[in-house]
């Protein structure tokens, strides 16, 4: 969206191809944001407003790219409507790939019981639950948990069952989610099991400290060994490595900050335009060109690697700059 907007503002045409019925990607599923607790909906509405008003932007929702052929200076892109199966073609001079990310399937972590115990869910699923609770009209929701445990690095920084890389944003969004639970249900016990919380950004460290010191979320340094069911609740067994003692907490929900992975479609899409992907499926950049993956092919956001909203906006603008420079050269 950001790239399309900047390209249009610079005087060129942008066609936004989105396979979902609405613009916004994962941002639509989020209830709040770090580090300022802002409503992501407002950001989306603002941008969508500008995009719809612009006469140089065409928005094609529920549309997918089926194939592409490189031409002299651009691509002939074949599109298909997911609404009515109609197909058409588009001649474009450059492409920006922004297919975003998804979360790893964490059922491989049988020890955490995802898919086995009902109270265990991923962070994205939990975000949906937070939205529901926030929209509830009751004083305290009927299904308010007495205890919530959030586990960091599920599938990240793990060379055996998961991915070796760090998914970058989970320490921050976990602090956000933990803080939100305390805001909704002040008497609920909230625990975050972390390895080392990574808060490198403007106001990030202060944000996490606020969640710990003012909202009273208990941070325990240790990767949990297992989640066990007992008496209708869930026991999280871990080690508090700073104290050097084993700990066990009884909660009702266990939230897994699952590793960020590219969507499977990204690799296919990249292939259609001659863009390269790495061994995980993230789009690879060219030497000295952080947002360009191939000639006339740019990318931005989660499809390149895990990134927070501001970073994605910056990359979108950077990709737009690349396109604009290219078009100026073409003239």
């Amino acid at each position, binding site marked *: 969206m950001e790239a399309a907007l900047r390209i249009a503002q610079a005087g060129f045409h942008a066609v936004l191809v989105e396979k979902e019925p609405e613009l916004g990607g994962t941002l639509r599923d989020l209830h709040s944001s770090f580090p300022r607790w802002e409503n992501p909906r407002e950001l989306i509405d603002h941008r969508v407003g500008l995009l719809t008003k612009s006469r140089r932007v065409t928005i094609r929702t529920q549309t997918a790219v089926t194939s592409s052929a490189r031409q002299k200076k651009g691509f002939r892109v074949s599109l298909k409507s997911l609404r009515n199966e109609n197909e058409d073609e588009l001649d474009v001079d450059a492409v920006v790939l922004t297919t975003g990310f998804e979360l790893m399937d964490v059922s491989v972590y049988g*020890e955490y019981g995802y898919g086995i115990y009902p109270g265990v869910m991923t962070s994205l699923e939990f975000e949906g639950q937070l939205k529901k609770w926030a929209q509830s009209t009751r004083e305290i929701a009927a299904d308010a948990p007495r205890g919530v445990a959030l586990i960091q690095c599920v599938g990240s920084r793990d060379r055996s069952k998961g991915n070796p890389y760090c998914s970058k944003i989970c320490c921050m969004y976990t602090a956000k989610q933990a803080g939100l639970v305390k805001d909704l249900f002040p008497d609920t016990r909230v625990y975050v099991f972390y390895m080392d919380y990574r808060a490198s950004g403007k106001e990030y460290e202060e944000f996490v400290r606020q969640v710990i010191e003012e909202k009273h979320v208990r941070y325990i340094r240790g990767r949990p060994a297992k989640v*066990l069911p007992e008496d209708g609740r869930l026991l999280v067994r871990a080690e508090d490595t700073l104290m050097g003692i084993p700990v066990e907490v009884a909660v009702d929900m266990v939230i897994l900050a699952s590793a960020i992975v590219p969507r499977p479609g990204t690799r296919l899409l990249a292939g259609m335009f001659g863009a390269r992907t790495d061994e995980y499926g993230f789009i690879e950049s060219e030497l000295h060109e952080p947002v360009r993956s191939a000639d006339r092919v740019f990318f931005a956001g989660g499809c390149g690697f895990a990134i927070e909203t501001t970073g994605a906006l910056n990359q979108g603008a950077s990709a737009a700059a690349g396109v604009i420079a290219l078009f100026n050269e073409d003239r």
Partner: protein
Amino acid sequence: MSRQRVVNPEEKFPTVPGTVFLFRSCTGSLEYPGTENAVKETLASLGIQALMDPDQTCCSGYLLTCSAHKPEVSLAITARNLSLVEKKDLDTYTFCNGCYGYLSELSHIMMHNPAYLQMANDLIARWGYRYEGKTRIYHVQEMWYRLRETIGEKVVRPLSGLKVGVHYGCHYLAKQYGILDDGGYPTFHEEIVEILGATPVFYKERQLCCGYAVGRGFTHREETVQPHLFKKLTSARDAGVELITTVCPGCNVALDREQPHLGKRYGADLKIPVIDLSQLIALAMGVPPQKLGFEANTIPLDVVLKKLGL
């Protein structure tokens, strides 16, 4: 992430061998000879011949864990033992998680570090042995799962109403790659228990290590080991478990032999018999209890056998 973690049994055993080498276990064959017999009887029922070699020694894994000697010693011992199997041109089948874990890991080290393989072979060559890394290491629990349908067909004495708490132990699942189930939440033993007609019980501490390697067998630190075992066994008792199954004689020793001591320490009345999964299978397939060596068990099998009408 890149290697395949869980394999299904048909991938592991595309064909069922007619003859296997049965790797004896120091703890299994000596402390619970009934286990070795149960394995032999079950293999025979399934049409598999088991060959052994009296020249085989203990895998030495447990001594290695206790740092009784340098790792190089265990590498040479492994090479010597496996060379006996290779002389018969067979694959190695263990019935002890410990043997399985150590043979797998030590042979892996030699296969990926030529210097170690050379050192081991140089040493054992003095007595005429030579190890090439051709024999594959399996555990009989894998074969039981592979042939579970055949086992089901051969059940003559369904263990109906028997509440069985399974204990997987650590060293098979710890291998993580190329094994039959997820180490985080395994269920394949419970499947076998159901096929035998018994009722599997998912007790809270089902996946807790028995603690044998950590110090029960060799160093026997009571203050470490007993609270740990107490936690596991009371969790089984509280869930109504009548019998615990193991696939490792080490686990069997830890869970079985310690119960009277727990009774003394905690005043608890823990009387849950612990037998090998192979013994349970053999019982269901009609092997008489006399052939299964239950006399070796500290916690007697009387109540369970009575319940089964034996």
